[in-house]
């Protein structure tokens, strides 16, 4: 975790530096490349300009050489007399496009040779003096210079300057187009187009060559009495349309932007990793602290509040509640503990269960499971969002709580088991004590009265003797019932309380049993309400045991002289046997427990009466074996009322009858 946190910021810095370097390199590349291209252009441009310059330098000599050649031609022609200067000179000078005149014929008279203000006269004198062709200065703006070629009178060409001077003849004066001559001089290269203006300035353009955006003045050329300024400008500006520098700049920008973007992404990822690592660490700490907390105590009330508060703090929960399924409320969820602000009344079953992530203020359910068995659920409302990793931490904490709840439940179960064992132990002790007391009391009474009768038979009055004998009989009856109970009870324990049900005339059986057990009820009034002819599917011996127990109970638990009612009637498809008394009745809380072995009520009546506490357990066992049912309730007058319903037919016959009834009365 620490590595990630420290390594995170280093990478973005590197990426930032890389981006900056790329940016600078691309800018430098842009300007460098542009400068390099400009230098190339410049060099190329200058070279061409120099060429042009040289051509201009040669201009004057070329013209003068042409003029000399023309003069020689004129002189030669005059000697033969075959030369027509008007046509032949024009052919000779070619591109000079001269206006040709011959001194002495057309121009000679017009030119006073001695006038120093006439440039042509000056040039004429200079030419005659040097015997070489000479250009005159222009007479004024718009006028053309004149080429003066000295002539010779002799046919043979004079050799040397002195001969030429001696043989002077008519001179040739040629008015020339100086602009055309300059133009011809500089337009040697096909790439150059030259325009000549009257103002004496020549402009030129370089096709396909780049150069400075403003024209470059090369040099001044003096020709034909004027100064010609040669100016050169490129066809297009330096590298104006060059793509490469821009490509380099753009590429650099793209690369550095990429680097910065990558750096930002990496930085963001690193921050997220750091934050999530921090969260993880916090969650682990909460889990680590919560584990021992949950194991501190086996009391739910001690563990839960602290757990809930810690969870609320760590996960910024608005509310947390523990729910358990309530068996009493039809297995519905019941909230047994909560921390936080109330609200959010959505039904529990509508809440999302274990969502992967949680939105702010969303409510959800976190089931608590232990060994695949649900032990409850946490109902949680979060203030903020909960990420998937935090959810897994919450689930882990839920598991811890589930384990703790499981332990608490196990502990409670164990406590309950111990309590029950102690109760059973107590019941057994009470049973031994009760049975001993019962046996001793009855045997003592039988033996005691027997002994008294034996020893004092003669001295005792008749009534006393009769009374004592009655007491012996009654105690013997009680003893018999007690012994029967003990025997039945021992069989009950070994599941050997056999019954042999058959079709029985229950009315006769009940009446007979009532007679047999009448001695147990000699201090009560037994009221019989036995309906005749009630047959049932049962075992007469079992009915006797059931009835004897119920009647002796009624006798024991109701005051002397009250009425005990025994009723038998057919109710629906059952034979109903009812025993009710006028005693204190069975408290509602004891109605289940009275059928348990050794149970004797806590009431004064129960404590003051005799019995081993197994009678009703035997009754319940017999009733169940016979397919009958037993219920205890209140008699109309307030005493206890036991109702036993016997089946009229064996179970198979009853099932067959049900089927036949269904066939007879089919479902529409």
């Amino acid at each position, binding site marked *: 975790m620490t590595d990630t946190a420290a390594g995170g910021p280093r990478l973005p810095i590197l990426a930032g530096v890389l981006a900056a370097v790329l940016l600078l390199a691309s800018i430098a590349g842009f300007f460098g490349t542009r400068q390099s291209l400009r230098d190339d252009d410049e060099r190329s441009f200058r070279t061409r300009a120099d060429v042009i310059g040289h051509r201009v330098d040669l201009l004057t000599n070329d013209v003068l050489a042409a003029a000399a050649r023309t003069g020689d031609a004129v002189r030669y022609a005059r000697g033969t007399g075959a030369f027509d200067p008007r046509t032949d000179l024009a052919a000779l000078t070619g591109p000079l496009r001269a206006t040709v005149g011959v001194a002495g014929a057309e121009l000679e008279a017009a030119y006073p040779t001695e006038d120093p203000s006439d440039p042509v006269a000056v040039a004429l004198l200079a030419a005659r003096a040097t015997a070489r062709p000479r250009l005159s200065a222009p007479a004024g703006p718009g006028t053309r210079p004149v080429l003066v070629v000295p002539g010779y009178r002799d046919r043979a060409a004079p050799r040397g300057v002195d001969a030429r001077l001696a043989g002077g003849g008519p001179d040739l004066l040629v008015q020339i187009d100086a602009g055309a001559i300059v133009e011809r001089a500089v337009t040697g290269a096909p790439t150059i187009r030259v325009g000549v203006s009257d103002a004496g300035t020549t402009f030129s353009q370089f096709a396909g060559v780049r150069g400075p955006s403003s024209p470059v003045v090369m040099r001044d050329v003096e020709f034909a009495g004027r100064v010609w300024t040669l100016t050169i400008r490129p066809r297009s500006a330096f590298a104006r349309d060059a793509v490469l520098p821009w490509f380099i700049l753009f590429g650099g920008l793209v690369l550095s932007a990429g680097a910065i973007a990558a750096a930002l992404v990496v930085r963001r990822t690193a921050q997220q990793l750091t934050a999530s690592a921090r969260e993880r660490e916090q969650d682990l700490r909460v889990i680590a602290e919560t584990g021992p907390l949950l194991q501190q105590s086996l009391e739910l009330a001690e563990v839960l509040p602290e757990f809930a508060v810690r969870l609320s703090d760590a996960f910024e929960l608005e509310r947390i509640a523990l729910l358990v399924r309530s068996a009493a409320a039809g297995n519905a969820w019941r909230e047994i503990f909560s921390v936080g602000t109330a609200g959010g009344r959505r039904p529990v079953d509508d809440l999302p269960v274990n969502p992967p992530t949680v939105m702010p203020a969303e409510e959800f359910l976190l089931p608590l499971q232990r060994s695949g068995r649900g032990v409850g659920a946490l109902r949680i409302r979060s203030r903020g969002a909960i990420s998937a990793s935090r959810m897994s931490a919450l689930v882990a904490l839920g598991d811890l709580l589930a384990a703790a709840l499981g332990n608490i439940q196990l502990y409670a179960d164990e406590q309950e088991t111990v309590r029950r064992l102690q109760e059973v132990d107590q019941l057994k002790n009470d049973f031994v*004590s009760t049975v*001993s*007391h*019962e*046996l*001793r*009391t009855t*045997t*003592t*009474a039988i*033996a*005691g*009265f027997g*002994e*008294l009768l034996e*020893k*004092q038979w003669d001295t005792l009055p008749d009534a*006393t003797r009769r*009374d*004592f004998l009655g*007491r012996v009989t*009654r*105690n013997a009856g009680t003893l018999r019932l007690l012994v029967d109970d003990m025997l039945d009870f021992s069989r009950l324990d070994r599941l050997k309380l056999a019954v042999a049900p058959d079709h029985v005339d229950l009315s006769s059986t009940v009446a007979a049993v009532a007679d047999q057990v009448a001695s147990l009820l000699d201090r009560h009034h037994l009221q019989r309400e036995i309906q005749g002819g009630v047959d049932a599917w049962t075992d007469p011996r079992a009915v006797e045991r059931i009835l004897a127990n119920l009647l002796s109970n009624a006798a024991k638990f109701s005051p002397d002289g009250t009425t005990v009612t025994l009723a038998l009637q057919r109710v629906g498809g059952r034979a109903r046997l009812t025993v009710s008394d006028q005693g204190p009745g069975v408290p509602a809380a004891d109605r289940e427990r009275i059928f348990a072995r050794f149970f004797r009520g806590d009431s*004064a009546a129960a*404590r*003051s009466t005799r019995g081993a506490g197994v009678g009703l357990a035997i009754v319940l066992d017999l009733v169940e074996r016979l397919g009958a049912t037993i219920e205890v309730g209140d008699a109309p007058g307030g005493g206890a009322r036991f109702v036993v319903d016997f089946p009229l037919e064996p179970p198979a016959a009853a099932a067959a009858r049900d089927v036949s009834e269904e066939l007879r009365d089919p479902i529409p």
Partner: protein
Amino acid sequence: MSAARGRTLIVDDEEDMRILLRATIEAANDGLVVAGEAADGEEGLVRWREDRPDIVLLDNRMPRLSGLEVAERILAEAPDQTIVLFSAYLDDATRSTALELGVRECLSKSDFAKVPEVLRRCAADG
């Protein structure tokens, strides 16, 4: 041995027992006299205060007040009162508790035949 020292109060919730004890004591006729009978502990206390018998023959297992509780109250008022605990079920705990309280004798109901003898001894020691 004076009859005045054998006056016995029978406290037992079983009618059979009371009648049997009375018949036995009267049959022994050895200066032993039944001073009265009580059917439970409360009644026993009332009769004891009225009759002030020499001996209280006390059953243990009775509704409301047990024999030991009755013995404790009697002995609190009259430490010298002779009490014989006559019980169907005498375990060691009951016996030692009784003797600690100051009960003179503990007799099991199975030793019913010894009742006159024990009563006579108590009357003699008086």
